[in-house]
């Protein structure tokens, strides 16, 4: 779960990381009021959960409350990478001397948190990693001990930060790590961390991604979820315990298992089809869950054909077949469907579906070919 900049920065502040004074607004008039209160220049920053806000004109500087109001009006009309801007953060503007990158994430290879810092802040860290890998410094954190003070200090030293800022930088690194660790984040990032003309260090922009599996430990964070920022179909899938990702194609996929679901999409794409979604119904999916999954797939108007790929494993295929038939009864919209069933009693399962006039296939490739053919027919109709 991704948090907005304003939410992330608020959480940083609660862990002792200094942030600019600022407030969130939803209308240009509110922006003007906030700018007046902050007294002076402000930054007006769109709050959407995608990257590229700057390039899209979603972050602007205003010299006066009037200008802030005007800019906010424009920004609140924007749509950035498909997402309409609903909120803006109005921050006191800072005179920036230096921009630094500081982030914490989990290192999959080491199995530990890693703090990453770079004197080249303000741009994507991946860009720095590609162009100036020598400008990135890292410290791995023992998950049983947490960040040690000396590590934060060593980062400052390794970045060749002027010595008078080591103390404050270390405090910010510790605050950032505390945020990451205490909230079960998978990413906590300050970019840029700026040094202002007054020699103050500030988290000018912030980003937090939370570990969904650990959200149960932080019920207060669940309230920060911005439902507007999530596709309704993905939200509904989550409610049913389904893993669903909408894509741009026209072939709906329903598969049990994430790896198999990806492989199914790959086969369809490889054979010239266009998958409309990733959908993993998980293990032991019952008729009710299958029905929900079908509804979600069909809520995408682009879907012209569907393929079910169920590897029964221990589950009996005749039960799966009956579940599919029951589920389909509840569905109104009719599109082509081919089902591939493998596992215990697979012949019986296929016979049940065949008797209900459903197409079945025995191999993945065969099923993919059938659904692709059907999707092209549907499209050409």
């Amino acid at each position, binding site marked *: 779960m991704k948090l907005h900049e304003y939410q992330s920065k608020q959480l940083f502040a609660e862990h002792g990381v200094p942030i600019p004074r600022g407030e969130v607004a939803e209308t240009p008039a509110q922006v003007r009021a906030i700018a007046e209160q902050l007294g002076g220049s402000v930054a007006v920053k769109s709050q959407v959960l995608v990257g590229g806000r700057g390039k899209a004109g979603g972050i602007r500087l205003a010299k006066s409350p009037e200008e802030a109001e005007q800019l906010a009006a424009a920004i609140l009309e924007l749509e950035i990478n498909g997402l309409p801007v609903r909120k803006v953060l109005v921050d006191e503007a800072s005179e920036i001397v230096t921009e630094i990158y500081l982030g914490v994430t989990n290192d999959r290879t080491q199995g530990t948190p890693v703090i990453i810092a770079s004197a080249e802040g303000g741009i994507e860290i991946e860009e720095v990693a590609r162009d100036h890998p020598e400008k990135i410094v890292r410290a791995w954190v*023992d998950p049983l001990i947490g960040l040690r003070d000396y590590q934060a200090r060593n980062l400052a030293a390794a970045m060749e930060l002027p010595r008078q800022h080591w103390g404050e930088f270390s405090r910010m690194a510790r605050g950032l790590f505390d945020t990451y660790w205490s909230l079960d984040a998978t990413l906590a990032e300050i970019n840029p961390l700026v040094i202002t003309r007054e020699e103050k260090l500030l988290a000018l922009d912030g980003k937090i991604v939370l570990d969904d599996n650990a959200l149960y430990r932080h019920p207060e964070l669940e309230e920060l979820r911005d439902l507007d920022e999530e596709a309704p179909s993905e939200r509904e899938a989550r409610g049913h315990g389904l893993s669903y990702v909408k894509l741009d194609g026209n072939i709906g996929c329903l598969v049990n298992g994430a*790896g198999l679901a*990806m492989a199914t999409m790959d086969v369809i794409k490889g054979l010239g089809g266009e998958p409309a979604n990733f959908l993993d119904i998980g293990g032991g999916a019952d008729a009710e869950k299958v029905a929900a999954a079908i509804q979600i797939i069909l809520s995408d108007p682009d879907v012209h054909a569907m393929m079910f790929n169920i590897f029964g494993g221990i589950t009996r295929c005749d039960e799966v077949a009956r579940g599919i038939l029951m589920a389909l009864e509840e569905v109104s919209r009719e599109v082509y469907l081919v089902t591939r069933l493998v596992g215990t009693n697979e012949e019986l399962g296929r016979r049940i579906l065949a008797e209900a006039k459903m197409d079945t296939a025995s191999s*993945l490739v065969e099923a993919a070919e059938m659904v692709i053919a059907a999707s092209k027919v549907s499209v050409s109709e």
Partner: protein
Amino acid sequence: MSILIDKQTRVLVQGITGREGLFHASQMMDYGTQVVAGVTPGKGGDWVLEGKIPVFDTVERALAATGANCSVLFVPARFVMDAMFEAADAGVPLVICITEGVPIQDMMKVRRYLDQEGVRLVGPNCPGLLTPGESKVGIIPGHITDPGSIGVVSRSGTLTYEVLYALQLRGLGVSTCVGIGGDPINGTGFTDVLQMFEDDPHTEAVVMIGEIGGSEEERAAEFISSSMTKPVVGFIAGRSAPPGKRMGHAGAIIEAGSGMAADKIAALQSAGVRVAEHPEAIPALLS
């Protein structure tokens, strides 16, 4: 021969009185696995599965009474970190964690601790292990594969079954199948298992099933290139996955331009691995 588990493996089931634990314990026994004990705190003294398997309150007691040397966990995600610590502290040398949805922070702690204590962990969020004809520890269906000389290692569940089934249809048997799990931070990795297969005299070739996310496949490619003599066939799921979207598994996500299927396939190919176009194409590449 096989790796990690065989006929002698004495299996403890943590969380045996839960729905999943009980069902799969029964499936394991039917397969011939030596299931010797279960643990559910507060249910010590019970007997389950037609009175054949004793349940203990603590792993320590289960080990003392039954000499289990492997534990498989069907414990809910919220309690599974503690259960893994308990298994490690009681002296279980091989811990297989089936549970999915384990918080990453918990896994970082567990992995650090188990590494340091010398306990081998497989998983979490994995289907477990299967040595055909000898023992299955986890949830891999037993009837879709037969004994043989192909080692299988995979980050996935049903996709692994798909591959096992494709091998079976062509008459190719398996030495051991290891599901290492789809989480970003887990115990045993590809490289560990590849090393074991390389050292196992009865494994003649290896099938490695990866997916998008992370860089484990790239490191495996390096290992294959530098240290493996046996042929390896690979498959990478997720070529059609868009960046930034998590494909079901917590670990299956293309982030900031890394973890892409194309890069993994290229790395494997340059290490001499034959990479299949789709799962059903794997058997042909083994001959």
